[in-house]
């Protein structure tokens, strides 16, 4: 039994046990990244509309998988918790930030397509800045976003995930532009690392938290 008591740490520990300790979200993120790495290849085969439909279907299957795993594996082992108003408020803020992070690229894409915003004039800037301006911006935002979530939730490994996702995407794009690689294998490597961490966490969770036999 740990005797180190701090209200803030207690709150973080409770949140971690309820959400991140079983590795399910890590596995979800890893599968999503691996799926995204196949996206450009499949777009050439299936066409954009069917490819998008496939992406949405796989995403839905992953989310259902997470729900089922948490209901039948995590909850019987770790139990349930209802958070207080302060924590709920914090979760709502983080959900709002996540939604902005997910929706912002779509909004920029629509604004770009409709010519509401145009390509900035880079003047005498080097070619790489001109070619990868959006990707560099995306990498910086991804690292910042994951860093923010890692700090707010007290889950340090999310810093690593931010770097893996951001750099994986940037290197993939560079390789696609300069070498013509449509299969984003750096993203697969990033996803693979996260998947290994997720599976290790999941196995540790099953080992540390067996289903209790005694009943209350």
């Amino acid at each position, binding site marked *: *039994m740990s*005797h180190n*008591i701090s*209200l803030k740490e207690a709150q973080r520990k*409770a949140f971690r*046990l*309820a959400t991140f300790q079983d590795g399910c979200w890590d596995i979800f993120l890893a599968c999503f990244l691996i799926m995204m790495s196949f996206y450009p290849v499949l777009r050439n085969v299936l066409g954009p509309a069917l490819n998008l439909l496939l992406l949405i279907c796989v995403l839905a299957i992953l989310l259902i998988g997470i729900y089922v795993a948490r209901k039948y594996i995590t909850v019987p082992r770790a139990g349930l918790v*209802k958070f207080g108003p302060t924590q709920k408020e914090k979760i709502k803020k983080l959900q709002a930030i996540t939604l902005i992070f997910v929706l912002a690229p779509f909004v920029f894409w629509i604004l770009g397509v409709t010519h509401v915003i145009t390509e900035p004039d880079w003047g005498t800037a080097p070619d790489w800045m001109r070619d990868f301006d959006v990707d560099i911006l995306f990498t910086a935002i991804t690292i910042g976003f994951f860093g923010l979530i890692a700090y707010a939730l007290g889950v340090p490994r999310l810093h690593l995930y931010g770097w893996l996702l951001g750099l994986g995407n940037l290197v993939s794009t560079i390789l696609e532009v300069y070498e013509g690689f449509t299969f984003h294998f750096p993203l697969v490597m990033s996803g693979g690392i996260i998947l290994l961490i997720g599976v290790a966490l999941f196995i540790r969770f099953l080992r540390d938290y067996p289903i209790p036999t005694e*009943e209350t």
Partner: protein
Amino acid sequence: MTTTKTSKDLHPLVDIDRVIHAPARLMVLTYLYVVESAEFIFLMRLAGLTWGNLSSHLSKLEEAGYVDIDKKFVGKKPHTMIRLTDQGRTAFREYKQSMQQVLDDLPD
């Protein structure tokens, strides 16, 4: 001139709530303080206590009126939710203040 502390000076320490002061119960109350309610298993995992140990501490906290234990069945499975009562929340806050005062008054 030296001064000795009277029992009045040590008032916060004398009045310390012994139900809360036990390390395991303090741990349980700390976790319950930061959530709305938690299932027995969740609390057991979080505090790192055994089933019997947590059960015994919860009984003492329930006797003191600090926690509310709600036992029900969801399907065929027992489901025990534990929540800090208003009395328990106030007692925890007072305990925290008393301990802080005692520790602040200690010389470096």
